[in-house]
């Protein structure tokens, strides 16, 4: 009964420690580490702990196999976690960077994405002329009714056909999209069958180099330029809206209208104005919100997947660590008993076993994080986006992610070391000495 009570207490202490670890910022760990080092060097109990730790570390080469179990196990957890979360982070970042608060996108009511939406010419004109829409020095509304279609191009990576998004821009598009730069070539000429290719689309799809011909609507179109918009649109091909509409026989209909508002605060007024027009039913949101929403499902899925996988791997690693540390404590039963017979208290022994485990865990965490960073940072991938076409994005191994990974490593090390450490400390001295 007493044993059970002890185990319960240990479990609670471990849970508390892990919770603290999860919540505290990274520099607090540095402070704790500094305090620990000070304690190890300055106090008597600390120096005892230090000498026990040194004995432990010096015998590590003999227990290389067992020690590597902890390191590799934890490296695996951290590596996989960081890689998967970097995928989610990268996709989300690409979409979140697309869009801002002062432009709004208008879709037919009920459509969740551009490709599902449809509106006629009169509707797009009415939307562009609402009073909340900013006008350029010539008095024209900074608005772009746009057409979104899907074309098929082979992917460089698989050779298989994949969907690529083709956007037909309205004439207000260039005033609207001020963040776009031309990297090569020139803009397409309105009315002609010319396309410019986004930077990421160019790297992902075949037949996208300058001068090559792409089949749209049964006719060849020429690539005349490459653009960089530093967001999700880099995965698209752009052309003149009217020319594309004619190639796909869409007439004057468009999928969406994107406008620049005179002021971000005018969004509600804009929505009210649109709602009051009886000729059409549309929804308006800021482009930031629109693209944010699109990343939601996939990023949430990847995050859940990544965390689940990491938790299961962590359980495996934890029990591996427990095994290793219990064995480590067992092989040093005699030494520990002798030390304690000589007067070393239980506390320093607990601390030293914990330090040893945490050092191994930290090593594993650093190795795992380093491998994930080396392989996956800026790793390009693409997946099917909301408009039924490829969105190209880069994995982002951010510092926060790396710190998170290290926290997981320390948490596993903490729990994995706490139980064996307490076992070492509570072992009756006489039992240990009898092993001699």
């Amino acid at each position, binding site marked *: 009964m007493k044993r059970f009570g002890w185990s319960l207490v240990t479990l609670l202490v471990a849970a508390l420690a892990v919770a603290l670890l999860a919540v505290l910022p990274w520099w607090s760990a540095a402070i704790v580490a500094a305090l620990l080092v000070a304690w190890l060097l300055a106090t008597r109990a600390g120096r005892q702990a230090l000498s026990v730790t040194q004995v432990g570390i010096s015998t590590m080469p003999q227990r290389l*196999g*067992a020690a590597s179990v902890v390191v*590799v196990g934890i490296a695996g957890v951290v*590596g*996989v976690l960081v890689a998967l979360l970097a995928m989610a982070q990268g996709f989300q970042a690409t979409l979140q960077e697309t869009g801002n608060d002062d432009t709004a996108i208008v879709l037919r*009511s009920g459509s*969740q994405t551009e490709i599902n939406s449809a509106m006629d010419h009169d509707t797009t004109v009415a939307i562009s002329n609402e009073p909340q829409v900013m006008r350029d020095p010539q008095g024209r509304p900074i608005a772009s009714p746009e057409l979104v279609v*899907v074309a098929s191009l082979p992917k460089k990576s698989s050779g298989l056909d994949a969907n690529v998004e083709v956007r037909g821009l309205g004439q207000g598009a260039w005033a609207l999209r001020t963040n776009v730069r031309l990297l090569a070539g020139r803009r397409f000429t309105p009315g002609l069958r010319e396309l410019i290719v986004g930077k990421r689309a160019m790297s992902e799809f075949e037949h996208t180099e300058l001068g090559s011909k792409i089949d749209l609507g049964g006719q060849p179109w020429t690539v005349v330029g490459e653009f960089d918009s530093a967001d999700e649109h880099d995965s698209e091909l752009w052309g003149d809206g009217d020319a594309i509409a004619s190639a796909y026989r869409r007439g004057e209909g468009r999928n969406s209208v994107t406008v620049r508002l005179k002021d971000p605060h005018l969004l509600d007024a804009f929505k009210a104005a649109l709602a009051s027009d009886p000729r059409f039913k549309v929804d308006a949101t800021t482009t930031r919100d629109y693209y944010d929403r699109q990343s939601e499902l996939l990023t949430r899925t990847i995050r859940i997947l990544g965390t689940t996988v990491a938790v299961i791997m962590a359980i495996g690693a934890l029990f*591996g660590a427990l095994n290793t540390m219990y*064995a480590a404590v067992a092989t040093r039963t005699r030494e520990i008993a002798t030390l304690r017979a000589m007067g070393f208290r239980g506390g320093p022994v607990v601390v030293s076993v914990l330090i040893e485990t945490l050092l191994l865990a930290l090593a594993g965490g650093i190795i795992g994080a380093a491998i994930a960073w080396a392989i996956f940072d800026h790793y390009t991938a693409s997946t099917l986006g909301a408009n039924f076409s490829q969105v190209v994005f880069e994995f982002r191994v951010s510092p926060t992610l790396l710190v998170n990974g290290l926290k997981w490593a320390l948490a596993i090390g903490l729990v994995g070391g706490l139980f064996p450490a307490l076992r070492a400390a509570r072992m009756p001295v006489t039992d240990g000495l009898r092993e001699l």
Partner: protein
Amino acid sequence: MKYLHLVWSTLFRRKTRTIFTIVSVIAAFLLFGLLDSVRGAFANAGHNVAGANRLITMSKQSLVVSLPTSLLMRIQAVPGVKAVTYANWFGGYYQDPKNQLVTETVPNNYFDLFPEFRLSAAELRAFHSTRTGAIAGASLAERFHWKVGDKIPIQATIFPQKGGSNTWTLDLVGIYHVADPNLKGEEGVLFFNWDYFDQAAQFGGGTAGWYIDRVAQPKDADRVAHAIDALSANSDHETKTQSEDAFTAAFVSQFADIGLIVGSIMGAVFFTLILLTGNTMAQAVRERIPELAILKTIGFSNRSVLSLVLAESVLLLAIGGAVGLAISGIAVSAIRAKLGPQIPMLPVGGAAWLRAVALMIAIGLVVGALPARRGMQLRIVDALSGR
């Protein structure tokens, strides 16, 4: 078999250590079951026995571009084509925008080309005779607790009705089942009549999204595909026809290289597992050298000692692996029940178990090899005198 007791008691000699190791093995195979279920769903997506005879004809530009319905008669006339039907994408959601549906509008003969969708003759007749009739897959119906006879309001995301309303109310007249557990993902589609859509939709009617063509034998596929595409060459609706398999594979590959992701994760997991169990086995054998020596004095041959150690490591993997895979089976069932048929996860079936058992044996042998060799090669006199 008579050695089972010996191997078992040797394994559990150090109970705590063995149980901890088994927990790690359980974790590894739990992951294997979950990830293999996802990988299998993507890999199996097109491998349908009934689909071996089917081709998909879509617009050469992309799947979202429609084709004229006049193609139906012309494809039917192509030599080698046994039957043709078509379908249109509708989409929509049920009650909450989060509940996006896979909804297609189809003509009367659609289900003739999909014999794996089990429907009673009565349900099929009801579909033909009810203008607003709809047929739902069993997994889909289960998710939303639909029963035959229910009126189901669907919110359109693309096609409003002529009056402007986005609500389409359908009458559920039948529920189809798919027998093959590997194809359970196909049980999540909602079908309603193409005619009704054509009449009631504000726009989008009068066309076919894509055609499904049946050939007499799979080996006719290539020839017939070319012949079908030749029908529309140089027209304003050029087509691309490929086998259902190829179509699905290309579609699936657009999501992600699932095989690569799953393979990498499992590679890392099993690498760690081998290290972990290898370490346990090495320790265990090291401790037992004198006992293995005793067995040899009794007359156990070197080969027997080798086999005993290997049996021990395989048993270790087998216990943990079986428990882990069983748990994953339960977990996958629970997830599929809760989140519906569009979750790309196959039930953990016989094939997964076979793969897992092969892994357990392989890893068990790898992990036990060096310790077993050590046990086999020990010299009795040295071992007994403690050298």
